[in-house]
């Protein structure tokens, strides 16, 4: 009997099918990698296994028992443990106290600590190499150490199934190898692991079996090399083959080089808690260009874009038309002429498509607004059909269109898009592709695109910046990218 069985799992959030009829099994002691681009449903699936979400339909069986309606703590007690993607240490307590929490039984009248608790906790700390900092607080520790502490806590629960949500995110290649061997060395013989990551390279060497997800559906399952060479999987992750590239050799725009860059970015550092997400990044965008920022998730693309918009803090300078935007609010930056279609879309869920668009054109006079709306309807005919529908009920692709359309309502000088192809079906990708091409070539909008789908990025971009582990590791023209870097960056 498999340790874990997932049958027909479905989870919807409004109009979005996060997990669509997914089936899979985990045997005792097996290590399974769950891969997929962002928006493929990986984290939601883990959330379903964990009890953070309840499925709309489907069953989950753990050691023969149906658990999909169990509370989180009941699942933990039956032998499941999780290490969350974004670490959740208990900040007011020391590392040792954090570990003690995982050893303590769920017994109500625990008025005294068991005599050997302290010793056991220190042992565990030593197992993950944290014995020196056991009495410090999480806020003083580097990011990697907190990861280790979370891992220790989960393993201390002695689970039969360990769920790891993006354990390698934000780590350098050497840190990844270190963590991987640590996990392997301290896990017990029959402990099964389900590991979610978008970093296929890291997962490849670590797991017994890979399951690939895309737009909530399982598209492949099998041994690592089988799955990696699967055509569908490659297309989804890398896009079509690099050689069959349709129109990715754009003409050079030499005229823009003489003028001052529209956006000039020189960032020293961006932090998220203790983790340094970005380090010494320099980017400049000239008027009329189409520039792409490519890289895997966790590379820091979103943080960089958010820094431009003033949503996250940063050390360094961001200049718009030569003037610093450091102390401006997000709304002020937007009013300068920068429009942003974020990864999380930030649509007004219960407002209609029309109302969302109208808010985008908030600063326009009524006549100009009408004209603008007409133009948007032309670009996005599908939105015109859905005018009176609330944003929440739109499909993933429609929501993405609305996000871009809403941003375009502002007649921006620079349009920034964060992973617009996120979790979208191929047909929709084509529409977005056409739209972006029209915006750029016909309307001359300057575009900064952040994507992990390199093929999509290459189709339109003149220049590419490759972001890996928080630093720019390559920059140049799209042409040079294909010849120089190509597929190597992913697998």
């Amino acid at each position: 009997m498999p340790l874990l069985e997932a049958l027909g799992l479905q989870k919807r959030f409004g109009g979005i099918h996060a997990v669509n009829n997914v089936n899979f099994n985990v045997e005792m002691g097996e290590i399974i990698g769950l891969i997929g681009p962002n928006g493929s449903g990986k984290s939601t699936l883990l959330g379903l296994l964990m009890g953070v979400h309840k499925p709309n339909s489907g069953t989950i069986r753990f050691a023969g028992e149906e658990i999909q309606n169990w509370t989180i703590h009941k699942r933990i007690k039956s032998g499941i443990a999780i290490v969350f993607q974004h670490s959740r240490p208990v900040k007011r307590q020391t590392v040792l106290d954090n570990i003690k929490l995982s050893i303590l039984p769920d017994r109500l009248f625990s008025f005294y600590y068991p005599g050997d608790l302290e010793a056991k906790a220190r042992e565990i700390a030593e197992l993950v190499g944290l014995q020196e900092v056991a009495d410090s607080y999480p806020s003083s520790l580097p990011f990697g150490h907190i990861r280790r502490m979370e891992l220790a806590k989960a393993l201390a629960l002695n689970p039969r199934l360990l769920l790891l949500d993006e354990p390698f995110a934000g780590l350098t290649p050497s840190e990844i190898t270190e963590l991987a061997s640590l996990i392997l060395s301290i896990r017990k013989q029959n402990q099964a692991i389900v590991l979610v990551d978008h970093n296929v390279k890291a997962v490849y060497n670590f797991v017994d079996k890979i399951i690939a997800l895309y737009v909530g559906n399982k598209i492949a399952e099998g041994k690592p090399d089988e799955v990696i060479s699967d055509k569908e999987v490659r297309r989804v992750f890398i896009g079509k083959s690099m050689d069959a590239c349709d129109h990715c050799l754009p003409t050079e725009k030499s005229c823009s080089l003489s003028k001052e860059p529209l956006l000039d970015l020189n960032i020293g550092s961006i932090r998220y808690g203790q983790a340094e997400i970005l380090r010494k990044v320099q980017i400049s965008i000239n008027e009329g260009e189409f520039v792409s920022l490519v890289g895997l998730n966790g590379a820091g693309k979103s943080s960089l874009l958010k820094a431009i918009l003033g949503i996250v803090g940063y050390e360094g300078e961001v200049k718009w038309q030569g003037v610093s935007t450091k102390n401006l609010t997000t709304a002020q930056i937007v009013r300068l002429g920068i429009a942003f279609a974020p990864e999380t879309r930030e649509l007004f869920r219960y407002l209609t498509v029309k109302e969302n668009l109208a808010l985008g054109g908030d600063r326009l006079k009524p006549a100009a607004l009408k004209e603008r709306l007409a133009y948007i309807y032309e670009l996005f005919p599908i939105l015109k059909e859905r005018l009176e529908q609330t944003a929440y009920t739109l499909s993933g692709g429609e929501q993405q269109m609305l996000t871009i359309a809403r941003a375009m309502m502002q007649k921006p000088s620079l349009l920034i898009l964060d992973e617009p192809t996120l979790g979208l079906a191929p047909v929709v990708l084509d529409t977005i592709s056409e739209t972006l091409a029209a915006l750029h070539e016909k309307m001359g909008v300057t575009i900064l695109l952040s994507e992990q789908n390199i093929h999509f990025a290459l189709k339109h971009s003149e220049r590419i910046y490759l972001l890996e582990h928080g630093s720019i590791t390559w920059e140049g023209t799209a042409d040079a990218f294909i010849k120089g870097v190509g597929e190597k960056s992913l697998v």
Partner: protein
Amino acid sequence: MQVVLQILINGFIISSIYALGAVGFSLIFGTAGILNLAHGAFLVLSAMVAWFFISFFKLPLVAGIALGVLTSVIFSYLLFFLVVHPLDQSKKIPREEKEVFILTATLLWSMVIQGLLDYTFGSTPIVIAPFTPGAVHIFNISITYNEVILAVVSLVVIGLLYLLINRTKTGKMLLAASMSHTGLALMGVELKKVYILLWGIYGLLTGVSGVLLASFLGASASSVPDLTGLSFSIVVLGGLGSITGSFFASYIIGYLGTITAYLISPSYTTLPAFFVLILILFIKPRGLFGRF
């Protein structure tokens, strides 16, 4: 028969006035995420200030009322700028405790106002003079013209609020703010401006409701906690985050209170509302239309 009609009419009037206050309370919660425990204090504050100017300075009714409402607006802004906003931005309070601190702070604000009112005006209830004397007689019961005006004004203001929120650009901005702060900022709209508008509207709605309440039932510093309790019984019954819910729940609670007052005793009006609240919290915490 007479009693039934009287209950129907009186219940309607008081419910409409409650609705005006509850809708404001709900708006603040839905958009800013704040349960303003000083709500009752604002209601009584506007009433007493209005009464003060009318009785002592002999100002005309409308002028006195305007001053009362203005006071409510001013104190709303004070609450936002001096208390709520600083706490929200405070780096000294851990994120998970912010909500609780803000909740406590609004309660303290309530006490400050209640204490000041009690000190200045004592504990005797005041009543605001009617807009017009006289009454109309239908089916053997009398309804004063004032009572009609109170109900009409409440509903008109609520109607205006409805139009504002659903038909104007500004209203849509308020709605949008309750859905995504980042999204709104990305539209080029300063969130602070939205908040300023929001608290101003809140002060206005609550101020008018308080004055109308005092005209119908009277008000005193000691009624502050009960009014706050009543308001959130309504808002929880209607469902936290739903303005429509608060509107309808006001009538349920209002009628409950009126029925109790007529059939049992006038001193019991708020008790049934509290029991309803506890019942709801046990059976269906999300209330009738709740989003949370």
